[in-house]
């Protein structure tokens, strides 16, 4: 056995390894699939009970989809870091001496994957439960909106999730930090989704201005997060 330390691994490989690890754990433990998805679906049904009016439901469907996504976001983010803190794996990641911004992107992509699965279910349930119609152009807008909004949410979720991982009172601190940050995503994604759904007579074209905002948000926190994550997670 030689004692030279192994050569430094490329960033892309670390991103892939972390991403696959998080997804694999989810496929095994099924926390998002078996707990968060039913929770989010239930929220959509509860909204229908609470609002109890087909017209209103159609109008607010976009907002409800993204509100349910946000609530689930907190649970998924906490779960995403709980798997790393449970048995000290986060320490091992620190000692591995790898580029922590690669860990940031790996975890963010895994988080985005889970969120997209969740959003597909939520949008489908909106179509089924709230009788929303989506046109072909609306669908293009909707898919773009989901992709941009999800990247933004995944970046800030991973960033602040890392900051609060292992901290005392993280259950309340995480929403306190995340909620004001994700407000632009909630507003923009909701408007874009409403435009795609044609809620309240909105035109599809109205939605694209919001996509720009979502893209800027994702870009800003993608860059900011990759710079800040290391110093937040690693004292």
């Amino acid at each position, binding site marked *: 056995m030689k004692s030279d330390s192994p050569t430094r691994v490329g960033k892309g490989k670390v991103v892939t390894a972390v991403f696959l690890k998080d997804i694999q754990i989810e496929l095994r433990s099924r926390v998002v699939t078996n707990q968060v998805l039913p929770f989010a679906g239930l929220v959509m049904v509860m909204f229908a009970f609470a609002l109890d009016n087909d017209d209103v439901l159609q109008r607010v469907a976009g907002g409800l989809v993204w509100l349910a996504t946000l609530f689930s976001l907190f649970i998924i983010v906490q779960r995403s870091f709980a798997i790393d803190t449970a048995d000290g794996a986060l320490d091992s990641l620190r000692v591995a001496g790898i580029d922590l911004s690669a860990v940031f992107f790996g975890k963010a992509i895994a988080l985005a994957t889970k969120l997209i699965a969740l959003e597909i279910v939520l949008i489908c349930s909106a179509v089924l439960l709230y009788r929303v119609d989506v046109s072909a152009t609306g669908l293009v807008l909707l898919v773009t909106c989901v992709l941009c909004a999800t990247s933004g949410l995944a970046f800030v979720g991973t*960033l602040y999730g890392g*900051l609060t991982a292992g*901290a*005392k009172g993280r259950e309340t*601190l995480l929403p*306190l*930090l995340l*909620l*004001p*940050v994700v*407000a*632009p995503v909630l*507003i*923009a994604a909701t*408007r874009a989704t409403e435009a795609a759904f044609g809620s309240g007579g909105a035109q599809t074209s*109205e939605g694209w*201005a*919001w996509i720009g*905002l979502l893209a*800027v*948000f994702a870009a*800003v*926190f993608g860059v*900011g997060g990759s710079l*800040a994550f290391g*110093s*937040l997670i690693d*004292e």
Partner: protein
Amino acid sequence: MSQVLQRTSPTGTRTTKVIGALALLVMAWVVVSGLILTPQDVVQGESVRIMYVHVPSAWIAYLAFIFTAVASASWLISKKHSMGFDRFAGASAEVGVMFMAITLITGSLWGRLTWGEFWQWDPRLTTTAFLFVTYVGYLAVRRLEGSVEQRARRSAVVAMLAVLEIPLVHFSVVLWRSLHQGATVLNPNGDVKMDDLMLFTLFSGVVGFTLVFVWLVLHRQRTMLLVDIANRQGLDAAIAARQTESLVK
């Protein structure tokens, strides 16, 4: 002189005494003039009096957060990572959060009188509310456990993230309100015709609140230093106590 000062306040100096006295004087003038001497506004009526405390506190709140951002950036950039920047950022944010709370409360009281509603989803108001929550979060991050250096690094990074966040929040709310012209309420801000005394009172308010801000930040920041020093001395004692464990054996 300094002995007397020490008895009243350990964080005071001659400069802060002067600033404090000036602040008291100007604030007293603002209260008297704002409540009694100034006339009521043609459009707003008596409610314009709230403006003499509301506008200066909003100004100070925003100023405080700019200071926090600049001090945090200075901490991150400076090679020495001087803790003075960190304490300044923290003190300024604390005072800023207080003034932001004052701004939101007095603003909604004024809104109730002028618009008939406590709250309007107006971009400026909404951004202000989000700024408030963001910096409450910043203060929560400062209270996370860890060493002084850890606190400084974490909070400086979070302050920088807030600087990224606020323009996005503001822009999204502006875009939201401009696309959905729902219940737009006549915004009487632009209609105020202020006479000289009213303008002077408002101006005095800004000066007085700025003096209060400077005084509070100076004292708060020195208090933070005192607490840090006291903790360090506590550490000396703790180290000595810890070392005696080995003698017992």
